[in-house]
């Protein structure tokens, strides 16, 4: 069995009487795009900070490619690039110099780091700003710089803590595309977000976390299939006596010519419903399906919306 990129077992952390993490188990495979989904204060950042070495764990283990993040911190930290939620401020140096320093902390000399820095500036649209100080950048540019800082040592694992918080839609979509490109290059990506759309669009697997506990893990599709409730509504042109016998096995409600089916997976249910209605010899005027989203799943699991 291949060694996971990140393996967390029985992880607990308390701040005084507040239990930030209550025995979290989580595995992220190498090359996986993984989302940690939860409201503010759920424990996402604490978990990440323990893996990266910013926070001490109380109990449990955290491993990166099979090595302990405390005992083998040099190995594990060199594998990770993190774009933190909080934007740092530096008054003294131009951003190019800051990236040279960042690479240096990871043992990369200035001459070796230069090509990567040029590439990142080009890719993230910061080339014209390389001599600027951080305070001279717009909010969106600061976010992109934050990402450049996480990538400058070419890490295998990229951890992004709320990477698109507070940025405009266009930039968000550009960043998503960049993250997809990084993923296609084989990078393991761990993303925390409270934007459901972000997790649904990007992540192969997600874990839903609330009040320091992982409530559910799986692919967004599997989770919505298992826990979401989708609906298919069919408007018929005519009805026939006894037609309902053709719909045995389906859960539906009827209001005159309008039938509403509750299904787990609308993609597979819809052709079957159409087939059975055709056998019943009725005319379908319109058919529409409402797909369940991860938001419904979150609501079902936690009893609250993600931004509450």
């Amino acid at each position: 069995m291949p060694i996971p990129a990140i393996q967390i077992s029985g992880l607990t952390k308390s701040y005084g009487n507040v239990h930030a993490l209550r025995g979290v188990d989580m595995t992220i495979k190498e090359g996986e795009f993984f989302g940690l989904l939860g409201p503010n204060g759920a424990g996402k950042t604490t978990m990440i900070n323990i893996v990266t070495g910013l926070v001490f764990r109380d109990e449990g283990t955290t491993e990166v490619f099979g090595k302990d993040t405390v005992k083998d911190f040099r190995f594990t930290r060199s594998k990770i690039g993190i774009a933190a939620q909080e934007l740092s401020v530096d008054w003294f140096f131009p951003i190019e110099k800051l990236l040279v320093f960042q690479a240096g902390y990871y043992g990369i000399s200035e001459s070796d780091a230069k090509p990567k820095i040029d590439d990142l500036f080009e890719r993230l649209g910061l080339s014209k700003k390389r001599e600027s100080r951080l305070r001279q950048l717009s909010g969106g540019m600061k976010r992109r710089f934050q990402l450049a800082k996480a990538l400058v040592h070419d890490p295998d694992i990229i951890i992004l803590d709320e990477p698109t918080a507070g940025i405009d839609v266009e930039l968000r979509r550009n960043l998503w595309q960049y993250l997809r490109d990084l993923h296609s290059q084989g990078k393991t990506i761990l993303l925390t977000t409270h934007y459901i759309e972000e997790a649904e669009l990007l992540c192969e697997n997600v874990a839903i976390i609330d009040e320091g506990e992982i409530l559910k893990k799986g692919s967004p599709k599997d989770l919505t299939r298992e826990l979401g409730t989708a609906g298919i509504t069919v408007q018929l042109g005519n009805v026939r006596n006894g037609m309902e016998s053709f719909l045995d096995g389906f859960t539906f409600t009827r209001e005159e010519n309008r039938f509403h089916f509750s299904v787990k997976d609308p993609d597979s249910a819809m052709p079957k419903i159409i087939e059975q209605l055709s056998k019943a010899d009725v005319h379908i005027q319109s058919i529409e399906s409402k797909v369940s989203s991860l938001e419904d799943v979150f609501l079902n699991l936690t009893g609250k919306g993600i931004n509450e």
Partner: protein
Amino acid sequence: MNWIGLNTLIKREVGRFFSVYRQTVLPGLISSGLYIVIFGFTLEQRISEIQGVPYTLFILPGLIMMNTLTNATANTSSSMLQMKLLQQLPDLLTAPLSGLEISLAYIIGGTVRGVVNGILVLILGVFLTDLTVADPLGTIVFIFLVSWAFASMGLILGQMAESWDQLAMMQNFFLTPLSFLGGIFYSIKMLPEWAQSLSFINPIYYMINGIRYTILGISDSSFSFSFWMALILTVLFTTIAILLMQSGKKIKQ
């Protein structure tokens, strides 16, 4: 050992204070020049000599020492607190750098600032007075040792402080009074006996007299005692600073 990481952080720390030399280098030079011109030249009319040395020359080693230790302390303490408050510290703490490497880099950065400021005031003194340094190598070694010790102390203060106010309190209520009471402007032999006894528990008294000996060849305390005191403070503060950084106190949760 992550040598490139250590070297990078040293470069950052040294580059940081040189980039704002108007705040970190020039003020000490200007205030020392003013002390020499105003205190030295005017008081020299009244206090002709102390221990056979003109008053202006007598105060010069103390000014060098005050400049050295306040700058060394300020560099590490302010840089550490600034990194904490401006969210820059996570960049270091998530990198493959050990507590030893981070603390050494900070201490070396502070030492460079202390040495640069100390040597510049010494050069200024040579220009403004007819100073001839008795033991140039001993002077540089002493400035280096004191810079290292107080850079380490500054790092401890910076890590423990939670606000600029707390840091300013340490500077204004302890470091500056202890420097002035350490005998910059006077020989403790001019004080009443009880005040002399108090001076003996002030470590900065030994720093000032140590450098006074290497520059002028005179001292209130024995040079070997001053040297050992500087060495002990250096080892003590360095050890505490490294252990504190490794413990993550106040910088990791």
